């Protein structure tokens, strides 16, 4: 049977003022009817450009300069916009965009928008379009009665489903999803993937799933292609690529990717960065990063060759049949990476005995009202009924030389917590104690010293550096602010610490001469140069590609070991958190619902929310059958909480007693959880609450 979509030797070139740039070179993939196909690669690898050629949505300066795109036996690469709109768009090939959340026009009803789509491509009546949308709402599990709603009346998860319904509106044979889950929290991603997966049972269509997340592809797709530098490095069955990779990049990408099942496995970053675009690409674009590159690799683009015995499996590497042996040879000195989760030092907490930073019953509430009258009313008649309890009774002891994680979905209060620690907000209640002294007793000089000893690393290395500063200036600046000795030596030192070597080479660069990973290293260096005791890290690797993530995470780990820094690592991503942290705290709507040494948390999660979070993480292994987390709804709003357990509306184990706020109780060795499932009620040996304050029961 001929494939539904066949891309053959496709070249795509961007015309720019500085000459032509080749974004995709000689790419070939083919997708069968009803097949789920994954296209993975790091940012800039050309995967979205490739999809743009299929959806006739390349940027104005992007041209197909060679090869063919064949859909149902018809060459469509040269279609004009009109032709494509008339024959293919939405009727044959539909798209799920990157941010389904904001893709519907907030000013029009959803049904009106569906009518417009039908009008643009069919001769359907309005009724027919609405009927169809109602039917599809049923398919994706939305109430048909809500087709006339405005998008803002839908929750995030519902918008996701509405977008899936939209993609199915004209019964396409193919759906292209471009990074549809990148902006989502893990629970939302899980719901989205579940819907896509279930859809296979009821509808016939092929899916081209474009993502940087190899785990999602291994879970969802039948076949896949890995792209690097505009070239398709390897393609074939997902299982074949997993079990028997024939391209070094596929193999290294797998090794760089964290797997929640093996949190102690050493992640290996891939050196270097994807090459900048050029016009002529007649070499292996992976050569600069490949540990096994040979002179031949740079002489010509390696031809794509089929792996013997598997006609679907092909790789573009001159050493493709050696990859397995090369990898095995290199691995000999490294210990078994798929070993038992709890390795020798796994459970060991490197933290010392002394707390450097402790939070005691910390609260940060925001009054919601912007209206003077309401504020007066609230202050006269008491109560802050509609205050947002962003942080609500958080207890945490960060020990010297320890990394602790705080994990939760967006809106759980972790950012507010961080900002309160930075002194941006004053706590509504509770106390922050730093090195034995309560922060509330600080005078101006103490604050200055605190700001030196407690440093922060932010999520986005692209915004945190001054583009006009060289690395040297960036690093000298904090020394100047804190009246510390400014020496070149110190700067070189700290650059070595963050592994920007040779340091002499980096010191004079400015922001534009640094890659994403290098920028993040510079911002870490900027924090380190002040010799802090505590680093607050806010999603420090979430903007980085997997290949660089691993090495930054390793570096953070080593810094703690070598220099005795403590770190509070805040993230929504449990896999990276568990890779670096000694202890993990799970936060849900302002409260810590569970807190345990990393290994205990992963192997024996107590709180139903923690269990769901763990469950929702995709596993980068096509042989692994993961069950969906099945966590309904979204966290909701931190202002309208009632008195019971904050998780009760979503909790699968909810009981009557959950109408009362559960308190933090010891549930194991140094392991605490706030859930009624885990302590006895009313008996004499009721475990003593560990928290000084117990907000919910007042």
């Amino acid at each position, binding site marked *: 049977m001929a494939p539904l979509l066949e891309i053959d030797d496709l070249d795509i070139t961007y015309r720019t003022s500085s000459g032509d740039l080749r974004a995709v070179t000689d790419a070939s993939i083919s997708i069968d009817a009803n097949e789920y196909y994954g296209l993975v690669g790091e940012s800039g690898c050309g995967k979205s450009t490739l999809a743009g050629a299929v*959806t006739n*949505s390349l940027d104005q300066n992007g041209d197909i300069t060679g090869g063919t795109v064949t859909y149902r036996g018809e060459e469509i690469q040269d279609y004009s916009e009109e032709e*494509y*709109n008339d024959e293919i*768009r*939405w009727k044959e090939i539909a*798209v799920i*965009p*990157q*941010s389904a*959340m*904001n*893709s*519907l*026009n*907030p*000013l*029009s009803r959803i049904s009106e928008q569906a009518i*417009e*789509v039908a009008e*643009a*491509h069919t001769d359907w009546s309005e009724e027919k379009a609405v009927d169809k949308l109602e039917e599809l709402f049923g398919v994706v599990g939305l109430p048909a009665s809500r087709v006339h709603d*405005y998008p*803002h009346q839908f929750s995030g998860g519902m918008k996701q489903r509405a977008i899936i319904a*939209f993609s199915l509106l004209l019964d396409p044979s193919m759906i292209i999803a471009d990074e549809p889950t990148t902006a989502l929290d893990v629970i939302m991603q899980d719901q989205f993937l579940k819907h896509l997966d279930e859809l296979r049972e009821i509808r016939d269509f092929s899916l081209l799933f474009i993502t940087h997340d190899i785990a999602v592809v291994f879970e969802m797709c039948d076949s896949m292609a890995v792209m690097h530098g505009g070239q398709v490095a390897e393609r074939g069955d997902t299982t074949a690529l997993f079990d028997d990779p024939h391209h070094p990049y596929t193999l290294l990408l797998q090794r760089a990717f964290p797997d929640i099942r093996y949190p102690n496995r050493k992640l290996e970053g891939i050196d270097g960065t994807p090459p900048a675009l050029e016009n002529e690409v007649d070499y292996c674009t992976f050569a600069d990063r490949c540990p096994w590159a040979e002179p031949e690799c740079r002489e010509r683009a390696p031809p794509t060759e089929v792996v013997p015995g598997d006609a679907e499996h092909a790789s573009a590497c001159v050493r493709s049949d050696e990859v397995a042996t090369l990898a095995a040879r290199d691995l000999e000195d490294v210990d078994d990476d798929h070993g038992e989760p709890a390795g020798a030092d796994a459970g060991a907490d490197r933290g010392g005995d002394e707390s450097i930073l402790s939070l005691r019953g910390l609260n940060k509430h925001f009054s919601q009202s912007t*209206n003077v009258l309401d504020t007066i009313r609230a202050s006269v008649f008491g109560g802050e009924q509609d205050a947002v309890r962003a942080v609500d009774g958080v207890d945490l002891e960060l020990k010297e030389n320890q990394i602790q994680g705080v994990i939760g979905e967006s809106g759980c209060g972790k950012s507010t917590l961080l900002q309160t620690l930075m002194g941006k907000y004053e706590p509504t209640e509770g106390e922050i104690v730093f090195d034995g002294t309560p922060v509330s007793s600080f005078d101006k000089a103490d604050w200055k010293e605190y700001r030196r000893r407690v440093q922060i690393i932010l999520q986005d290395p692209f915004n945190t550096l001054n583009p006009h500063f060289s690395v040297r200036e960036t690093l000298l600046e904090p020394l100047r602010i804190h009246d510390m000795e400014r020496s070149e030596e110190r700067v070189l030192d700290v650059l070595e610490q963050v592994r920007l070597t040779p340091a002499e080479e980096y010191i004079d660069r400015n922001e534009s001469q640094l890659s994403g990973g290098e920028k993040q290293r510079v911002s870490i260096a900027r924090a380190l140069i002040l010799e802090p005791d505590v680093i607050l890290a806010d999603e420090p690797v979430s903007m980085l590609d997997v290949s660089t993530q691993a090495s930054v995470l390793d570096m953070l780990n080593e810094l703690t070991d070598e220099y005795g820094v403590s770190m509070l690592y805040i993230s929504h991503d449990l896999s990276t958190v568990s890779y670096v942290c000694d202890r993990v705290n799970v936060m849900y709507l302002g409260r810590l619902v569970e807190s345990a040494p990393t290994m205990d948390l992963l192997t024996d999660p107590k709180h139903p929310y923690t269990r769901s979070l763990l469950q929702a993480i995709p596993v980068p292994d096509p042989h692994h059958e993961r069950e969906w987390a099945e966590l309904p709804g979204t966290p909701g709003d931190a202002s309208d909480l009632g008195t019971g357990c904050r998780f009760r509306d979503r909790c699968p184990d909810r009981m009557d007693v959950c109408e009362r706020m559960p308190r933090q109780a010891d549930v194991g060795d140094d392991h605490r959880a706030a859930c009624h499932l885990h302590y006895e009620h009313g008996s004499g040996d009721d475990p003593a609450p560990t928290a000084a304050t117990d907000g919910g029961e007042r």
Partner: protein
Amino acid sequence: MSQLYYYARRTVVSILLIFAIATFLFFAFRFMPGDYATLLLQQGASPEQVAKVRQMWGLDQPLYVQYFKWLSNMAQGNAGMSRQFNEPVLEVVLPALRNSLIVALPGVLVAFVLGSLYGALMGSRPNSLLEKYGIIPPNIVGTTPDFFIGILLLTVFSAWLGWFPSGSIASVDTLTSTSGWGIYLTSDFWYHYTLPFLTVVIKYMYYPTLVMRGSVVEVRNQEFATYQRLLGLGKWRRFRHIMKHASLPVVTVLPAVTATSISGLVLIEIVFNWPGIGQLLLTSVFARDTPVIQFMFLLIAAWIVIGNFIVDIAYTIIDPRITIEGE
């Protein structure tokens, strides 16, 4: 229900606000040095005459008595007497207001419509010559003082070309042969109307053009616009979606611009010798005609309060995301 409640509350608040402003104005004007009577004195009136005038206007009574008198008069639609014309304030102000609004309202509205369209056009053609250089003319015009534009138009179209008259609301013949609203029906009026109207349009196109241009550029890059391109909706259809979004900030500046246009109006009316509130305000200030000034300030304040109210309502119509319970 909540909607009704909201409007009711807004109405009450607006009325209270206007009342507060009126009160403030009343006292502010009482405490200002140099009232009308003092002016008479400077002009050579004898102290006895001044006292008589003061008594006639009740200026000799205690302040709170004056205030309550003034309040009860206002409540009955009596804004007092103009001192310079010796006529009821309303009869002085209303015709002037009418003359002004007939220029200002259509002028500002047309400016907003044209400016929005022009701004949208610029914003929707990235990297075009229009986008690069199209902003220059509105920038020049926007930073030129209003009266200067008026003078320029007068010089070109009246003095040089002789196409339009050089000022006033109508020729003497028309003014004597018609009265009240009748004047607006004469072609002579519209002949006089053209240049002041154009001045207002040209001057006030600046804001909406600028705001709309930026707004369209921003909205074009919003995800829904990208998605609509992928959906294959027609160009015109997409432009309409973008316009609707992008017009929100333009609607926001509308009342503020109309309100500030009053200051510009003063100058434009002087240039064109247009008998509107701008002129009236000026002559009243020179004549220390406090009842008239006070009433006109009140009108302007009321317009801003009411205008904002109208914009809020318009917002809820355009943007369904805005819930009006004020939660």
